[in-house]
């Protein structure tokens, strides 16, 4: 994606028309009502979708707005999951565990950000991947309260399964709405302007008096906090976590794909990307059990070839070309 295209997209996103917000409101209401009418299977699918909305919005902050391609951002998902899990095993309530998920993830990004955010482009991308893979080994080595390689079983809830899953669904929904709100606010506040200046030209931003390292570290901490929250809820949801599932690099990669397909740096792009990719991959999985990865791979390649700027941009272009065609005829 060229720099100008990203800027155009971001500016477009920052001035969304009221009609779009009405549609978003209706969408949220529908999602609020959804648990009444759908089966347990689809409740599970939708909870996963909303989880990915949070993770992808977290990625949007560092990749879409700041322009630092954290390919291994899934590491904070695992940190959040383990922070919540360890806190609950130590006897704390779930709510305290969730707060810790956010704080510990953000603190990790804050500390690691100072050295790692000095790297640029591909180097930063692969450093985050290395971080993600190293985290698996670190948890295995630490052992103790993290359970090490054996995994960690969280205390079970007293609630019945059905209301519990619905409550967790609403928690993910609240997280998805909150993370989208964070991105919206960020695009309008001074930090957001600083971050977008860094994305378009870091040197120019520094010349304009922005403390670029500080801004980048803040952005990554926000990103990590959001991702960590999703990890914390996820840990309580599946109740058993192990290093290879909590720090699965595929989580970060999948969110990255959702972000690209939805459109980077926009407010609603990550939401649309998460819904499209997760629902399509669920349908493909249930339809073609043996070849689902193959078909999913083909879908990724085709979408990237057809709509490299994301599907919002591609459909807008399609509409524009149809209009132009009508005008000419």
């Amino acid at each position, binding site marked *: 994606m060229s720099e100008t295209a990203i800027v155009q997209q971001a500016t477009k996103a920052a001035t969304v028309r009221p009609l779009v917000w009405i549609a978003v409101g209706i969408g949220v209401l529908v999602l609020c009502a959804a648990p009444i009418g759908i089966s347990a299977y689809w409740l599970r699918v939708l909870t996963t979708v909303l989880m990915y909305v949070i993770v992808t919005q977290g990625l949007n902050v560092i990749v879409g707005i700041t322009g630092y391609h954290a390919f291994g951002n899934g590491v904070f998902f695992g940190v959040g999951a383990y922070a919540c899990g360890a806190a609950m095993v130590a006897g704390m309530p779930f709510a305290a565990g969730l707060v810790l998920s956010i704080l510990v993830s953000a603190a990790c990004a804050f500390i690691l950000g100072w050295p790692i955010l*000095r790297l640029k482009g*591909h180097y930063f991308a*692969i450093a985050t991947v290395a971080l993600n893979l190293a985290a698996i080994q670190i948890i295995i080595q630490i052992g103790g309260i993290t359970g090490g390689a054996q995994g960690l079983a969280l205390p079970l809830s007293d609630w019945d399964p059905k209301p519990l899953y619905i409550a967790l669904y609403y928690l993910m929904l609240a997280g998805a709405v909150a993370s989208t709100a964070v991105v919206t606010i960020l695009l309008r506040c001074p930090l957001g302007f600083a971050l977008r200046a860094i994305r378009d030209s870091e040197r120019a931003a520094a010349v304009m008096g922005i403390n670029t390292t500080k801004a980048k570290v803040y952005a990554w901490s926000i990103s990590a906090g959001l991702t960590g929250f999703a990890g914390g809820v996820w840990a309580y949801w599946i109740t058993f976590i192990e290093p290879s599932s909590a720090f699965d690099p595929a989580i970060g990669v999948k969110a990255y794909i959702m972000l690209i397909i939805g459109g980077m740096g926009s407010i609603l792009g990550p939401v649309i990307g998460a819904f499209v990719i997760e629902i399509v991959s669920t349908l493909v999985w249930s339809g073609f059990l043996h070849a689902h990865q193959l078909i999913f791979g083909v879908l990724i390649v085709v979408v990237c070839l057809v709509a490299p700027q994301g599907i919002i941009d591609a459909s807008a272009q399609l509409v524009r070309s149809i209009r132009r065609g009508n005008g000419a005829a």
Partner: protein
Amino acid sequence: MLAQATVNGILLGGLYGLATVGFSMVWGVMGVINLAHTSFITLGAYITYVLFSQFGIDPLVAMPVSMLATFVLGYGIQRLILNRIIRTSLLLSLVVTFGIDLILTDATVIAFTSDVRSVNASYASTSVALFGTLVPLVRLLAAGLSLTIGIAFFVFLRRASMGQAILATALDREMSNLMGINPQKVFALTAGAGAALAGAAGTLSSMLFPISPTMGVSFLGAVFVITVLGGIGSVEGCIVAGFLYGLVQAWAAYWLGTNFQEIVAFAMFLGVLVVRPQGLFGRAFFGEHA
């Protein structure tokens, strides 16, 4: 014991180096981080396995076949898919190659199932005495051939006109275009060569490791570390860094225990990235500006 661990580590490092050269070249020349690279290793191993188990062809004889097959596949993928992508966005290539990797891995599972296979050549259990240590012949062969192929590719890049075109494109894409070099062709050629080198590494690793659809992915961590250590796009850097990586891994296992192998590798990786991001031998290649 230490001598044995050292020799084993160095020999394995040769193979790691060969497994990385193609990945590093593709990254250096066109700025593509090819996540599908390791599935070419898997593919090379399976081609060797089929030729060996169906026709009784020796793995070393099968190597040119698996190199040719992976070359054609790498060339085709670059021409049909990746050349269209890198015109728009470099980081999009990460996602596309991830998709290609899914396709290739799943195709392997469908074709060969997930069962673990092995190639046992007649000389598989032969060992050679070397510096007072006992070294399996296949490991020695793998390291020797890896080094030979790596040097051959190094010479090809510097002596053959096609190789020089690849280097020129890596150093300055616009200028090489002005000199009458077609970047699309050079990209496809580089991708093909990179895949062929991975295929060769696949053939060699089929003699050392069990063959499964995920065998390539186990190389991914090493491939990343060695690329960065050697400097992106540097063939000689890759070979030296491969040996270094093998040595450090072996010593980490010897002094600290096998659990620490990966932690030491990642520490090395992050250390190099922060202190010397251009790698031990790297210079500014096109991929670095992107």
